[in-house]
Every structure is written in structure tokens, then in C-alpha cells.
């Protein structure tokens, strides 16, 4: 899921960086008071989740949890993912500092979109499980497609790259779908205001 240093062309790097900076600016406005700690905890979960591997295909892929972060944090997942990826780049040498912007955008943008798409569906009991599974699953699918797109913009050959990247991530999509589903059903029972913060007042 992390694109390594030295692959992407300069315009792609700059574009990704600008988009991520904008997303982070919006996200930071949402992180206040009560929301600081949940954001930090989820950022920490994102940071360590990348160490859980699913060996598959030519390489190996790992949990990302971007869907879960998007669902629970909304725009605030931008700063959370930025922090997680920055520390992964420094401590684990995943990705890199120059590609940080692109990697953040690829993972956080689908998460924010799915946040807004899935929220209404979580209200109803019938659709809750399938919607939360879908968030986990689609967040990885969309992130893989964005990743293939950023590789293709630098190199050409989107279909080939996309097939490689998406196929490699199918097991992760399933894992994340299940993890997101169980996490949401657990939170709804135990701590519903995390899922529905607007109910608190």
C-alpha cells in the first residue's frame, strides 16, 4: 500500500502533497477537545497495523485500517494517517518522506468519502453490518486504485498496474471488511457515541 521513494514523477509527488495538505488542514479543524484522544489512538492503531502481514502474490501486503479510521474520524483521518505514515516512514522505512503526500492522499481520501457514504447506513440495524464491511473492503479497493493511478501517471500502463495492485490487496480487503464490521458492531453496543458523535448532545 505504500509507494516507495524514487518511483513517482515530480508532478505526481507535488499534486499528492498539495491535496494531502488541504485534507490535513480541514481535518485538523475537526480535531478538538474530546476528539483529540480518539484520533491519537486510531492513529496509533494505524501505525502498528501495518506490521500485520498477509503474505500474497509477488510481494506481501499488510493491514491498513484506513476504512476504519475514515469511518470513525471523518476528515480527521487525514492528520491521523499523516502522522501514522510519517512515523512508519521514519521507523520502519515504509514508503518515504518525499512520497508521503501521495501515500496519505491515496489512503485517506477514499476513507473520507466512505465516511459520508456509510454514515446513514450505520443508523439502521439491517444495513449496519454490510455497510461497515463495505467500508473496510472498499477503502482498500479505492486506495489500491488510487495507488495504481499514481504509479500509472508516472509510468503509464494503468490497467496492468491496477490489476497487480488490486489483486495483491484482495485478502486485505476481506480482512479489513471483517475487522471493520466487528469493530463497528462492538462499538455500537458498548460505546455508541463514538460511531454517532452527534447523539451526544
Amino acid at each position, binding site marked *: *500500500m*505504500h*509507494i*516507495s*521513494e*524514487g*518511483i513517482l514523477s515530480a508532478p505526481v509527488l507535488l499534486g499528492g502533497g498539495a491535496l494531502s495538505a488541504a485534507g490535513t488542514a480541514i481535518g485538523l479543524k475537526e*480535531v*478538538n*477537545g474530546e476528539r*483529540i*484522544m*480518539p*484520533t*491519537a*489512538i*486510531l*492513529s*496509533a*492503531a494505524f*501505525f*502498528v*497495523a*501495518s*506490521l*500485520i*502481514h498477509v*503474505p500474497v502474490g*509477488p*510481494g*506481501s501486503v*499488510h493491514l491498513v485500517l484506513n476504512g476504519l479510521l475514515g469511518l470513525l474520524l471523518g476528515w480527521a483521518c487525514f492528520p491521523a494517517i499523516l*502522522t*501514522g505514515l510519517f*512515523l*512508519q516512514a*521514519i*521507523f*520502519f*522505512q*515504509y*514508503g518515504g518522506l518525499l512520497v508521503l503526500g501521495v501515500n496519505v492522499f491515496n489512503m485517506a481520501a477514499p476513507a473520507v468519502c466512505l465516511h459520508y457514504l456509510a454514515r446513514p447506513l450505520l443508523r439502521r440495524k439491517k444495513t449496519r453490518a454490510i455497510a461497515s464491511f463495505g467500508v473496510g473492503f472498499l477503502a482498500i479497493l479505492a486506495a489500491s486504485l488510487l*495507488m495504481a493511478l499514481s*504509479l500509472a501517471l508516472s509510468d503509464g500502463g494503468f490497467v*496492468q*498496474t491496477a490489476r*497487480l*495492485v488490486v489483486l*495483491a490487496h484482495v485478502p486485505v480487503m476481506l480482512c479489513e471488511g471483517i475487522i471493520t464490521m466487528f*469493530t463497528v458492531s*462492538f*462499538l455500537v453496543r*458498548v*460505546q455508541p457515541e*463514538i460511531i454517532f458523535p452527534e447523539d451526544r448532545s
Partner: protein
Amino acid sequence: MKQTPTWLLFFLLVWALPVMAHGLRVFAWPEGDRINGETSFGHGRGAKDSPVKVLDATTGRVLLTLRTDDKGNFSFPVPAHAGSRDQDLRIVVETGDGHRGEWLLKAADYLAGTGEEPVPRPLPAETVDRPAPSPGKQISFSEERLRTIIGQELDSRLAPIHRALAREREKRPSARDILGGLGYIFGLAGLAAWWQSRRRP
């Protein structure tokens, strides 16, 4: 505690944690007049059937392209004339799904065993001045030939050590890295909380 569920999720993740690296590593070491290499995602899996480029490290010219085998290993002969130009080799592996790893092989490291010297070295004076070996049963070898034989023999004996040393350079995420990263995240959260509490009346 208010955030119990998220904390719980977080600790579940940490417990499930197999500590593994993920970035693509490339190692190469000389063996006789060949250069052997290995790719690794850090837990025994290599980048299978992926393109390998061998570049001249100073000019960036591509000298050779090959592919890794189904274990992620590769091997190629020392490029011709590499010795005469004291050429450092940059070995780059790109998997096509965003992973990239490289390894720099110094001329001095791989030319030792081939009989070619990185820079033409004059024979030590004493060997030139030494009187001819006394006639006897001993088989006479030219100094150069002997040097080559010993060099080759040493190289094949040392190959496992070269390999081990090359692998040693790989950095794995240690408990210290993980805890350090988590510390940073919660430190940032603390900073954010402090900043916001200051601005509040």
C-alpha cells in the same frame, strides 16, 4: 475510562503483532566472477519474477537487466570491463506494485575475486627483485596466477559471510521503533490538548 473500547481494539492489535519489516530489501554479494543477490520483504518472502536493473552508480547507465527467480534471488556475471573503470554498481529492483529497493555494490567489494583490480596495482618491489626460486620439486606458479587462485578460493569460502553481512544491513522494526512511534503519537496528542486548553478562556 471513557475510551475503553478503542483502547481494547488497540491492544488487541498490538497482541496480534508479528514483528516484520515490509519495505523491499535488496542485497548483493560477490562470489567468484558472479554477483549473487537476494530480495526480501523482510520475512522470508522475496520479490518473485521481478525486474532487476544493474546500473553504473556514477553515470546511471543501465548495464544489465534481468529478472528474479521464483524465490526472489538473482545472479549475474560481473559486467565486462567493470574493473577497468572502477565501476560501482547500483542494483535496483522494482516490483511494479510500488515497491522499490536498491543496493550499492562498491567496485572494491566485488572486483577482489575476479582477478581484475579496481585500480592497476604495481607488484610489490620485493617480488620483482627476489631471486628466481631454487630449482627443486616444487611446481612453479606465476605470482599473478597464485593470487587469482587464492582470491577465487577465498571468495567462495567467504560468500556466506558476505551474504550474512549484506543481510545484517537490513533494518527490522524493533520493539523500540514501535514504542517510539506510539510515544510520538501520544506526545502529539498531548501537545494538541495543551495547545487547545491554552486558547480556551
